[in-house]
């Protein structure tokens, strides 16, 4: 192994009540790599992504991301770390409907603790092909446009880790390909390692060896 892994997890388990929903004896992701997490519904994909984002404390095990010990850190430390290092694209895109596209991105910059940078916002929107939508409200966007805005928001602060939870399940084949291409391009542009969690078998071919959860084959 030439580069240090961005993610390294060991003996990771997560339980809800007595039910084990995630069990990961050993898993590593190379820096700058694109990795697919594949598994049926309920197999623990979202749970894993939440742990990687520092939103959820696993029941046991140890996870290092970009040298940061998520499992050993306090909630406050994880919040601060996540704001700087992690970008997240959810299936439900969660754009704030009271704000315009540009305001949504400006809020993300504020909360990430980076300087307000309108040029960066415009530039990122332009690279994702939605430059003309800056003044629009989320409800005025198509699903595809909204997804591009959500991706823009996730990479705006140049995170080390870009997580995407079910980014394609609502899309047809053509849009599905386009969405993945955008994610890959955005990750490459900001130098992020990309993790995509899905049960969508269509996108298997785009990635190398996937992490299989819940006995998925």
């Amino acid at each position, binding site marked *: 192994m030439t580069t240090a892994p961005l993610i390294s997890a060991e003996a990771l388990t997560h339980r809800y009540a007595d039910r084990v929903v995630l069990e990961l004896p050993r898993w590593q992701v190379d820096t700058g790599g694109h990795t697919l997490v594949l598994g049926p519904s309920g197999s623990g994909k979202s749970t894993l992504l939440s742990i990687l984002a520092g*939103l959820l404390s696993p029941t046991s095990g140890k996870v290092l991301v970009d040298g940061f010990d998520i499992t050993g850190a306090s909630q406050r430390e994880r919040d601060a770390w996540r704001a700087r290092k992690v970008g997240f694209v959810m299936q439900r895109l969660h754009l704030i409907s009271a704000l315009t596209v540009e305001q949504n991105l400006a*809020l993300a910059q504020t909360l990430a603790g980076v300087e307000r940078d309108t040029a960066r916002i415009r530039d990122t929107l332009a690279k994702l092909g939605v430059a003309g939508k800056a003044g629009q409200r989320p409800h005025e966007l198509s699903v595809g446009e909204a997804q591009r805005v959500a991706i823009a928001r996730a990479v705006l602060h140049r995170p080390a880790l870009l997580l995407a939870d079910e980014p394609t399940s609502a899309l047809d084949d053509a849009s599905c390909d386009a969405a993945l291409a955008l994610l890959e391009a955005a990750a490459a542009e900001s130098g992020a390692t990309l993790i995509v969690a899905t049960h969508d078998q269509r996108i298997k071919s785009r990635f190398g060896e996937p992490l299989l959860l819940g006995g998925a084959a």
Partner: protein
Amino acid sequence: MNILQLVFAYLKHRPWLTLLNVLLLALGIATLTVMLLFAHQAEDRLRRDSKGVDLVIGAKGSPLQLILSTVYHIDVPNGNIKLADAETVLADPMVKRAIPLALGDSFQSFRIVGTGTAFLELQNAKLAEGVVWKQPLEAVLGAEAAKKTGLKIGARFIGSHGLGGGGEGHVHAPYTVTGILAPTGSVMDRLILTSVESVWKAHEYETPKPALADLLKGVLARDPNVAPKQESPPAQAKKDDHDHHDHDGHDHSAHSEPGKEVTAFLVQYASPLAVAVFPRMVQNTGALQAAQPAYETARLLSMMGFALDALRIFAGVLILASALGLFIALINALNERETDLALMRLLGASPARLAAQALAESMTLTLAGAILGLVLGHAATHLLGQWLEATRQVQMTGMLWLPEEWALIGGALVLGFLAALWPAWRISRQDVAPVLARR
């Protein structure tokens, strides 16, 4: 995107709900403001007008009416008293000063008050222009009376019978303006002051029988030269008769031959102890009544207090309703924005920041409600004041800022804080991961 920008974005996003919340509180605050301004000015007024008057001696009847008519110049007097009756009690050494008042006429609904110059001293009134009256039928105008009637020094006017205006004119006895008072902030601003003799003079041509008065009305109003009666000698001519009375400060101009009448005397005691004895002494003098402004004013204020209490309860209910509305709106917003809040946590917002945002939103609403309420309250008081001035001769303004109003603003902010406390706490405790993983 700082917290306030975000707050405004959310408030703008639900304009009707925002407006409803603001309006509800504004109505409560406006009601309180009107009460505050009204009560303050009424009390202030009542206190200022009765300054220096320990007792009013007038005709038998309602003591409140006597005070209202002679001290506040609102009601009509109970009747007149004979000078001879009053002189006996006023000779008492307990009396430091007694100021006569002779009411009955008005000009353009400003009361003409026959009195002595001591009345000016009592209210600290200073002449802005001209000189005080010397001859009968010379008059000094209160600041507002001068302004509203437009009368200048040297102008002549005809008083009309009755206090409301519109009565028959005393055309045979026109007044001449010799002076105009500087504003006093008391009822004196609205009075036309003259000597008691002037009022007597104006009434010498009056016929006491209503039937005859009606008959004469038409003639007199049209032709000032139809003056059937002979002029009687001026009242001052008899003044010397009373020089043996040695009561300092008494206004001798009013003391005249028996049979002459005035409406009342404003009495100032020589010693505060007089209050225990003197009113009863007057009361026992058959025809006279003694009324204490302090007591009657307190009664008036407590009567007003009931009305104000009712208003206060009304305002309280409104404010409580608005607090409840605000609370429900915040709980609603909390559910509606669950994903927004989770997202902000994901993007790096601390729980404390989200809680602060909920508090800021609530307090912005209540602050807006308070400001709008104060504006509405002042505007309403002003309109009410104009109506009162036109119909009741009572002055009231909305252009007045009381220190208590800062407390209203502070109270509104506290209300906003309290209403948001529980929602803010819940927001700060919200679990993020499940909300975001939801499909």
